[in-house]
C-alpha cells in the first residue's frame, strides 16, 4: 500500500479518532520541536529479513541506499555541538557497504553512536566482523528481539530467526557487550507479536532477563519496548486480520497527554536514504517530510529553523503517545 493510501486508511473520519483533535483538546497543537539532539540516519531499506511488523517494509529486494554525498553531509552535521546522539538504522545498516566508513567518521565526533541491528544478520558470513568493529568504535547496539520465545519471534520475523539472534547475542556477550562493567551497551528492542499494546517495560525487561539467562545463558543491558506503529506491513497485518479498528481504538483510549511532551520527534531529526528530512522514521515511511517552511533536504540543513519546526502529526502518532508512550529509546515513562 502506498503512503497516501496508508494515511487515508488511518484517517477515515467516521471510524477514527483524530490525533490532531486530541492535541488541540490538551492545548499542545501545533506540536513543536524543542531542538535537535538526536540525528537518526536511515541509511538503507535493504534487509536480510522480511518481518511482518516492519514499518519500513524492508526486504532483501529493496534498493534504497544512502549515497556517499548524503553520508558525508550526515557526518558534517553530526559534528554540530547541539547533537549528542547519532542513531543509525535501516533496513539492516550492516547491508550498506559504507557502514564501516560512516561509523569511523562518526566516531571522531566522540558522541553517542547507536546502530540498530536485527542481530540475525551478525551471524551471516560477511557481517561477522561487525561486532568487533562496533566494539572498537564504542558503538551502542540496539538489537531487535520481539520476544524471548522462538515461537513468537519467528512468527513475526521468519523461521529460524530467533536461534540466529541468540547466537549473535552470545557472540556479542563473548566480546563484552551486554555485560555489566564493560561499558559496551547491548539493549534489546521488544515489540508485540500481534494486535495488542506492549506491557510495562520494566516487567517485560525482568522477564526477558530471566528467560534469556536461564534458557540460553545470554545477557543484555536494557529492554526498549516499542508499540507497533500502524503503518507499513503492520498495517497490512491489522487490515487482513480485521484488527485495525480495534487496534486504533485501543491506542486512542490509551492516549497519554504526559507522553506527548516527551515524544521522540521533539528532539530528533530523521534523515532518509535520499537525504530528505523527517520528524521520525514513521513519518519517513509515510513520505511526510518536515513541515512546509523548514528545509526538507540535508543539503539545506538549517539548525535554527529545524530546531523549532512544527512537527507533522497524523493518526499513526497515537502509537507513540499510548500508555507509557514509546520511542526508539523505549518507553517514555516507566
Amino acid at each position, binding site marked *: 500500500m502506498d503512503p497516501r493510501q496508508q494515511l487515508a486508511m488511518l484517517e477515515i473520519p467516521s471510524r477514527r479518532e483524530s490525533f490532531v483533535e486530541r492535541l488541540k483538546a490538551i492545548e499542545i497543537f501545533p506540536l513543536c520541536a524543542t531542538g535537535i539532539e538526536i540525528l537518526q540516519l536511515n541509511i538503507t531499506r535493504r534487509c536480510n529479513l522480511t518481518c511482518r511488523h516492519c514499518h519500513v517494509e524492508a526486504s532483501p529486494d529493496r534498493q534504497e541506499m544512502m549515497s556517499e554525498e548524503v553520508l558525508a553531509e550526515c557526518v558534517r552535521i553530526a559534528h554540530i555541538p547541539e547533537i549528542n546522539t547519532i542513531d543509525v538504522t535501516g533496513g539492516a545498516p550492516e547491508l550498506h557497504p559504507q557502514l564501516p566508513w560512516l561509523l569511523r567518521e562518526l566516531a571522531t565526533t566522540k558522541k553517542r553512536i547507536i546502530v540498530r541491528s536485527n542481530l540475525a544478520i551478525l551471524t551471516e558470513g560477511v557481517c561477522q566482523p561487525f561486532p568487533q568493529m562496533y566494539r572498537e568504535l564504542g558503538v551502542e547496539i540496539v538489537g531487535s528481539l520481539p520476544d524471548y520465545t522462538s515461537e513468537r519471534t519467528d512468527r513475526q520475523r521468519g523461521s529460524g530467526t530467533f536461534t540466529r539472534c541468540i547466537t549473535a547475542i552470545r557472540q556479542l556477550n563473548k566480546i563484552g557487550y551486554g555485560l555489566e562493567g564493560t561499558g559496551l551497551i547491548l539493549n534489546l528492542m521488544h515489540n508485540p507479536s500481534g494486535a495488542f499494546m506492549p506491557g510495562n517495560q520494566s516487567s517485560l525487561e525482568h*522477564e526477558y532477563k530471566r528467560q534469556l539467562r536461564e534458557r540460553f545463558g545470554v545477557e543484555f543491558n536494557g529492554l526498549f519496548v516499542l508499540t507497533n506503529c500502524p503503518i507499513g506491513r503492520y498495517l497490512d497485518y491489522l487490515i487482513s486480520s480485521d484488527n485495525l479498528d480495534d487496534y486504533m481504538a485501543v491506542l486512542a483510549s490509551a492516549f497519554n497527554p504526559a507522553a506527548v511532551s516527551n515524544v521522540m520527534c521533539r528532539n530528533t531529526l530523521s534523515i532518509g536514504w535520499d537525504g530528505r528530512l523527517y520528524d521520525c522514521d514513521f513519518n519517513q515511511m509515510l513520505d511526510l517530510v518536515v513541515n512546509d517552511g523548514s528545509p526538507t533536504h540535508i543539503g539545506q540543513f538549517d539548525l535554527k529553523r529545524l530546531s523549532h519546526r512544527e512537527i507533522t502529526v497524523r493518526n499513526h502518532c497515537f502509537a507513540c503517545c499510548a500508555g507509557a508512550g514509546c520511542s526508539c529509546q523505549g518507553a517514555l515513562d516507566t
Partner: protein
Amino acid sequence: MSEPYYKPEDLADFANIGEHSPELAASFFDYYGKATGAGKLTEREKALIALTVATVRHCPYCIDAYTNKCLSLGVGNDEMMEAVHVGAAMVAGDTLAHATQIRKIIRKKEM
C-alpha cells in the same frame, strides 16, 4: 434482533463508572491499581490470577482486558490455559465439595 447486553466497546466505558459517584469510583480505582500492580507478586503473575478469575466469573470485559494484558506482558498461550485450568479445577472442586451438603441431607432424611 435486539442489541446484545455485552458490547466490546463498553469495555472502554469502564473508566467512566464514576459518573454518578466519583468519590467511590476514585477509591475503587486507587484500590484496583494497587491490588493489580506489581507487589511481592509480579504484574505478570497478577495478570494470570486476574485472567483466571475473569474466566471463572464469566466476565467478557475482564477476559478481553486480561487476555490482552497477558499477551502484552509476554505470557505464553500455554501459561494462560494452564492458569484457566486451575480455575476450572477449583470450580469443579468446590462444586463437588458442596456435594457434602447433599450427602449430609441424604444421611439425615433417608431411613
